[in-house]
């Protein structure tokens, strides 16, 4: 067996989630190669070479891959991937965008968001917003899989894989990057943070999220939000935690003014410890909380911050 992992990166550094995918690949077993496709991404390739257990880094450096456009990338991976038994990527928006396109090019199904590796062909994955876990077995000759990063530990970083340049840079010419509007934050990344503080509709407006930012900075936490808070325009979409947003599993998740719809729970219920602060004692969030505090968040948050 041989496994190809698609590295997640921004051309400057390797995203930590890639190292979680390496752990999933190691559970499948076999030689592990990592593809770094980007533009001016030598530093990413060097970082990927340090992932423990990786045999070889394939480095495709071409302007066609600078923004991870699925049309260009899927063609490259379909070409390179033919000799592998498994192709893995993290279930990030990049992975979710490109991998099904790749699978269709290879005429195979794709297995989304795996939580565990049962054997080389059998995996567990969530369905129905995580209200059920399916064990699925694939008979495809190449298994195309996205991996939920929070379900696997990070691998060590003491490897020394070789870096091999691959050519084939080809711009399909049907899609082009226009621009991006990326959130800039000094706080930890949501899916990798040890502590996450999230706000919901109960925050009432975007300004009140400052209360969460202050608390988060004291805890070195990331800040998330429920869909209700994002839809209401309090905060941008990249903060959404839930079935169709980001999936988090921190050591501590603090839900503030969040009622706890099943779609939100799907994104955070694997957190180790869950705290809920809500003035509605019947809010469903209390059913999954380890520690529930029935209180007005505008009283509780300043007090919480002071008590730290």
């Amino acid at each position, binding site marked *: 067996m041989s496994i190809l992992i698609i590295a997640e990166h921004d051309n400057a550094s390797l995203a930590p989630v890639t190292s979680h995918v390496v752990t999933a690949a190691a559970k499948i077993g076999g030689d592990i190669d990592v593809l770094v496709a980007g533009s001016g991404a030598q530093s990413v390739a060097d970082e990927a070479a340090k992932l423990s257990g990786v045999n070889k880094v394939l480095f495709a450096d071409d302007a066609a891959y600078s923004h991870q456009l699925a049309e260009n990338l899927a063609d490259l991976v379909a070409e390179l991937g033919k000799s592998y038994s498994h192709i893995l990527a993290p279930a990030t928006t990049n992975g979710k965008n490109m991998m*099904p396109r790749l699978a269709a090019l290879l*005429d195979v199904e*794709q297995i989304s968001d795996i939580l565990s590796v049962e054997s080389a062909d059998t995996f567990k994955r969530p369905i129905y917003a995580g*209200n059920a*876990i399916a064990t699925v077995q694939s008979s495809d000759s190449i298994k195309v899989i996205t991996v939920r990063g929070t379900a696997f530990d990070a691998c060590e970083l003491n490897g020394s894989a070789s870096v091999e340049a691959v050519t084939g840079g080809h711009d399909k010419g049907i899609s082009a990057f226009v621009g991006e509007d990326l959130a800039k934050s000094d706080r930890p990344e949501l899916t990798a943070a040890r502590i996450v503080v999230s706000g919901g509709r109960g925050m009432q407006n975007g300004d009140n999220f400052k209360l969460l930012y202050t608390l988060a900075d004291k805890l070195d936490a990331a800040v998330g939000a429920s869909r209700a808070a994002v839809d209401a325009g309090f905060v941008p979409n990249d903060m959404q935690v839930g079935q169709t947003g980001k999936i988090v599993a921190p050591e501590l998740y603090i839900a503030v003014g969040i009622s706890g719809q099943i779609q939100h729970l799907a994104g955070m219920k694997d957190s180790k410890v869950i705290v809920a602060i809500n003035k509605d004692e019947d809010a469903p969030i209390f059913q999954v909380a*380890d520690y529930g*505090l029935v209180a007005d968040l505008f009283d509780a948050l300043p007090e919480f911050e002071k*008590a*730290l």
Partner: protein
Amino acid sequence: MKILVPVKRVVDYNVKVRVKPDNSDVDLANVKMDMNPFCEIAVEEAVRLKEQGTATEIVVVSIGEAKAEEQIRKAMALGADRGILITTDEAPSSLGVAKLLKAIVDEEQPGLVLLGKQSIDSDNNQTGQMLAALTGMAQGTFASQLLIDGDKAQVTREIDGGLQTLSLNLPAIITTDLRLNEPRYAKLPDIMKAKRKPLDKKTAADYGVTLSNSVKVLSVEPPAERKGGITVGSVAELVDKLKNEAKVLS
């Protein structure tokens, strides 16, 4: 421009599904079904493009059980012009659906295909991307804004770090995210009118597509239950528990 909108019949988003005692699947007997919420957003976007004069015809297609006609009629009540229902004996795989949709794209030659980014039952998030691969078209997934300008579509996508804008050659495949629009409700006269809109009933064989699924579901289990928690009386007690019991704060 003709717009093709594939829609899926799924469990209503408010229903908390339960796993069958024999762990073979979830229990959908007597459970309320509806159009997948992301598909509804796709229908709404198509209707808005028609209202703006960009689209001339909206064709809605659903693949699965015969009852999916209800979802096609709903899309028609919202503004779709005609429908195609492809019935299958078993729930088709993502690739199977994509192959059927490819056959429909070849036949209908739409200028744009609008789909939901994922269905809330299988949570796969695959079909649009697979269709894009099979048709060789560009894909704008997780769209929160869509502008049609001549032979290009400018699409703003919800990505992990924020928003990304791409320019795609038309025809293209667009999959919808939550913030693309807020779907309208169907009005009663439109629901009545929808009953008379044309609907073609087909099978997979009519399109020469053989459905198979290389991914077999071995079992379905409920997720691990969280142990019941406790209610604390004050912020001070909460902080104390987090430090000394859960040991997640120092």
